[in-house]
């Protein structure tokens, strides 16, 4: 797109597209069907817990008594089990993440909009209890189950394997020597009946005993998908190696406080933006006007990306955006100053303009690489454990880093095209 006119049309279309996506929801955003593919046009902004309200909880697992090998197993089991608990609590949007920090094993639980956090904490903080139960009535499984003396403590570990005949995934159970004896007795007594497995008082699986198992190793066959089998094995492990979890961090924000914060920061952003635009026009005249146009396009593109990617906006994230607005005009200021310099040297306006855009690029690139390096370290995309991984810091780094990259486009390509096309027609000397 060497022709500035084509580029200009592209920028106008892009801006209108971004503007449409950012219009308030009063304007219809229908889902468009095109060649059988439905394309939504409504992308809501997603807000972090600090703005939408909710709880951020960090639990530390007490793994001191476990060997390294056991620890590996515990991680997934614990995560699955806690996910199961929050799901059952009716929190479908809850996010449970396991993270390792040195020797420590942590679980991060994000609960959006939960009313009673304390109840949720108690629920999550319980140590897993696994037990095997036999049928209350020999002929009727629906009548319920009775506890046996076989519990999670008797289970060494669970895993998955593949049935050589059907190639279906199966779950393997390894009992301790004590557990093996108990299991042998129970299987002998319950042939043809169900020996149910309960986790936290809730049934996990209803395997039917086919034959007595003496050697302390069992497999559960079923209609498992690989994913489902892995999940169940992890949950069984959570019961086999029960680990206590302690709350080490809690951040709870009420939704009302969050809304107030959003309102205030948007207000602050608008006031700041207005001042920046006023300053640009006052100082650079017509050039400042074009810089302002591309600044508005900058804002539209940023928010469109926040919606499309999507980026979860947190308070520091909004601060990062606000800061990046101040930085976005930097490239333009650098170019305009360069242009004045060339004009002072007696160059013609159009020559000065092209020279300024060309020569300022080196400075702009080098300077922005430093900001991108910092944003990279703060955002920590590879989750290196020696860098901070706090959500707040990352939210800020993400909007700041993204902002710098978008501003390279709007500050240089957009401003230059706008000036070439819109200001090129009149021959007035338009530096103020």
């Amino acid at each position, binding site marked *: 797109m060497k022709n500035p006119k084509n580029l200009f049309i592209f920028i106008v279309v892009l801006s209108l597209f971004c503007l449409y996506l950012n219009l308030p929801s009063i304007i219809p955003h229908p889902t468009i069907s095109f060649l059988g593919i439905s394309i939504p046009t409504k992308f809501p902004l997603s807000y972090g817990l*600090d703005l939408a309200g909710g709880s951020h909880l960090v639990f530390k697992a007490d793994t001191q008594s476990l060997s390294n090998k056991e620890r590996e197993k515990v991680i997934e089991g614990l995560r699955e089990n806690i996910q199961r608990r929050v799901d059952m609590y009716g929190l479908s949007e809850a996010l449970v993440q396991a993270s390792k920090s040195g020797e420590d094993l942590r679980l991060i639980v994000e609960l959006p909009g939960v009313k009673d956090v304390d109840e949720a904490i108690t629920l999550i903080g319980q140590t897993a209890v696994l037990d095997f139960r036999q049928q209350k009535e020999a002929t009727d499984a629906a009548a319920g189950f009775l506890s046996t003396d076989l519990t999670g403590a008797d289970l060494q570990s669970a895993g998955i394997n593949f049935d050589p005949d059907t190639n279906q995934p199966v779950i393997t159970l390894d009992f301790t020597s004590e557990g093996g004896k108990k299991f042998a007795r129970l299987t002998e007594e319950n042939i043809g009946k169900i020996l149910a497995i309960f986790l936290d008082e809730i049934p996990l699986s209803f395997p039917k005993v086919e034959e007595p198992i003496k050697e302390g190793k069992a497999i559960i066959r079923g209609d498992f998908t690989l994913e489902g089998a892995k999940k169940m094995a992890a949950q069984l492990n959570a019961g086999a190696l029960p680990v206590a979890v302690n709350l080490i*961090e809690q951040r709870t924000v009420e939704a009302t406080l969050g809304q*107030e914060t959003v309102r205030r920061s948007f207000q602050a952003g608008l006031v700041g933006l207005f001042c920046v635009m006023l300053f640009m026009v006052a100082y650079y005249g017509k050039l400042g006007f074009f810089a302002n146009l591309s600044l508005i396009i900058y804002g539209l593109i940023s928010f469109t990306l926040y919606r499309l990617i999507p980026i979860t906006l947190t308070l520091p994230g909004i601060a990062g955006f606000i800061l990046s607005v101040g930085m976005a005009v930097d490239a333009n200021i650098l170019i305009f100053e360069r242009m004045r310099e060339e004009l002072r040297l007696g160059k013609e306006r159009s020559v000065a303009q092209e020279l300024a855009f060309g020569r300022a690029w080196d400075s702009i690139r080098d300077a922005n690489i430093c900001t991108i390096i910092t944003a990279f370290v703060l955002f920590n995309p590879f989750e290196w454990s020696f860098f901070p991984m706090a959500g707040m810091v990352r939210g800020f780094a993400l909007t700041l880093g993204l902002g710098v990259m978008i501003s390279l486009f709007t500050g240089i390509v957009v401003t230059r095209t706008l000036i070439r096309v819109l200001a090129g027609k009149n021959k007035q000397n338009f530096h103020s």
Partner: protein
Amino acid sequence: MNFIKHRYISFIISGLLVAVSVFSLIRFGLIPSLDFAGGSLLEIKIDDSDISTQRLWEVVEKIDVSISQIQETGSGTFLIRIEGGKEKGDLILSGLQEKYQKVEKLRFETVGPTFGQELLKKALTALAVAILFILFFVAWRFHDKKFGICAILAMLHDNLILAGSFSLLGHFSGVQVDSLFITAALTTLSASVHDTVVTFDYIRKQTGDFSSQKNIEAVANKAISDTIVRNINNSMTIIFMLVAVLLLGGETIRWFAAALLIGTILGTYSSTFLAVPFLVVAEKMGRKK
């Protein structure tokens, strides 16, 4: 204007600011927030006509929990910083609910002490890594390690004074240092280098090789004259945005915006008045040998 000739003015100003900062950091230190030291934070809304921080102190003093700070954050909303974990926070809340009819919990945060220590260690690692990266990048871009070192020196100056200001703010108004402060410090670091790189770039543009120039002072001076308006104007736009956040953005990010603001101003000042003069001094020292 001959900026390089009058470099001693900025060296004296910076020297004083650094001295005050170091003194304050040693004498008063920084007040770590719960992010680093552990503890709890409770923000509440109390619907009562006769409510003030003083009244709140009177109420909570009777509860067996040590409280480090009570701050008013809006009309009827208060921030209470508590030493200790969740149980302590619950005690305060139930104590207040006994006294007042309508107590609404807006925010509650608690962080364990070891967790905070770890965050501090990681934050410092991030700071060190970012500094090293930038040092190498600048030295490589300008084919001269002196450029890298001078950029880093100016940046360390900015961060030291930023820390010093927060030490004084902490001592006199109880402002705490949290993980957002570390973020602001890292941003200051990049903003400072940002301006320095632009100014250095003007030196590079005039001369292929800085070290081979006879009159380095004139070259440096021209670079400063050419970039000073740009550096100031660019900071102005950032300052507009940050002042708006500082005044209108609310309590939660007020001090974050303040830290960024101090950092931005220092960054612009040090790029022009420290980094370039440093470069001239370093070059001269190198030649004497």
